[in-house]
């Protein structure tokens, strides 16, 4: 049961990361134009977030060893994601408007601005979601003998969630929902994951 909940947690975490990546690229497009650099930035920034999330997630797992700790990350991240439609447009506007008007923006900034915008909006929530996988590996691996199977299952579930996130965002969500609705739903999902962590914390505590 606890294992199933942990697998569901990383699956949904992987799902949310890719919803933020795909829908985020669409969101950034209107401010930064040309799809190509926006996509380059968005993919790069999300990978940076994943890398940092894995690193810190693993260390924090060793240190705190309780699923409860993750709610301290997931609640702010969920609230942040919920608020993206409210704060991001002004933030991006400030970023775009800082260049002197009536002079062409240099090619370098045309490339780097979307990365900055993407980092300001998407680095934090994707970082938090990435901490889930190493954290769950630590909680689920009862002894050294099953670390391989546990980490394999966690990687697989998280990646399967990401695959679902990519296709559902691009093929379905964009056609039927507004971007702000999708961001708010992803924020809600992240808060739901925080709740799942609390439940998992109690379930694992009972077990020991």
């Amino acid at each position: 049961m606890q294992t199933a909940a942990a697998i569901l947690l990383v699956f949904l975490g992987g799902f949310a990361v890719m919803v933020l990546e795909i829908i985020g690229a669409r969101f950034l497009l209107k401010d930064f134009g040309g799809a190509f650099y926006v996509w380059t930035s968005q993919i790069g920034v999300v990978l940076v977030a994943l890398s940092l999330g894995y690193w810190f997630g693993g260390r924090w797992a060793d240190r705190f060893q309780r699923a409860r700790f993750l709610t301290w990350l997931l609640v702010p991240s969920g609230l942040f994601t919920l608020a993206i439609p409210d704060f991001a447009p002004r933030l991006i506007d400030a970023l775009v408007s800082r260049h002197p008007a009536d002079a062409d923006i240099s090619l370098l900034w045309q490339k780097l601005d979307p990365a900055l915008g993407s980092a300001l909006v998407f680095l934090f929530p994707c970082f938090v979601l990435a901490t889930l996988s190493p954290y769950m590996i630590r909680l689920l691996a009862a002894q050294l003998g099953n670390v391989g199977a546990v980490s394999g299952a966690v990687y697989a579930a998280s990646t399967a969630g990401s695959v679902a996130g990519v296709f559902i965002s691009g093929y379905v969500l964009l056609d039927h929902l507004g971007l702000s609705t999708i961001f708010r739903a992803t924020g809600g999902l992240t808060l739901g994951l925080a709740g799942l962590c609390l439940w998992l914390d109690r379930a694992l505590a009972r077990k020991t």
Partner: protein
Amino acid sequence: MNAVTKFTLLALASLAWLMTGLPARAQTVYQVTSAYHHISVIDSSGYRVLSFNGSWESRVSLANPLVGHFEYCELFHTPWLWNPAMTNVLVVGLGGGSTQRLYQHYYPFVNLDTVELDPAVVSISKYYFQTKETARHKIHTMDGRVYLRRTQKKYDAILMDAYSTGRYGSFIPYHLATKEFFTLASANLTENGVLCYNVIGNLNGFRADILGSVYKTMRSVFPQVWMFPASDTGNVVLVGTKSKEPVTLAELEKRARSIAKDKVVTLPNFEKRVRAFRAQPPANLSRVSVLTDDYAPVDGVLTGTNRR
């Protein structure tokens, strides 16, 4: 003659036959893969064609650069009907520069600005399509919306011709077709300004929901929107005017004759193009919705439906 020689001769003969048999008409002059498209310049049957991922974006006659363009480029001359004294015109999307070439030739006094996203298109357009950047024509290599957001200039007309092309056809970049975009464009137009939008889609069903959506979205910002369908391709030029005054075909024909007489517009087919005018909106207006930054599935559901 041994078998090997025989075989070699036969092979050579077949090769020669194959080479003469190949159509000499289409020849790729140049190709490059930019950040956005696989771009080819093709010479075919006396025309030079600019192709993105296999599509035809621009065409010009190799013998006479003032002919061979697609008809919608001439429909881009309709803003003169509303303002016979235009001095500043913005074109979003360069391609082979057909629109720019015609404007530079027929209205040499007009100040043109072109915004083109892809630097490769700018150099190809200059080198292979003789697009000229002059004191009166400046090309800005950036996104159209980013440009409009930052420029302080006001234009008498904005001509929208920006597309991205994939394996499954051309797509309007969604951020150039939303209510927020048209509000921004309208703010950069002079008092009597006109916005022309080249929409790939037509009234006979092909991408009709795209056409209907863009029409409805423009109508949510501009007091009047009129349609000018092209007869050679599946394009419709939508004309949004800041003028609230309704017009009729008879009225526009009168204006066309008048500005032709005054030598304001000397484009040969101008009066014929004006007759493409359609006052009535597309039939699917009640079905489609206004496109916004938040919700604009122009590359999704709207493209999939080819119904009237």
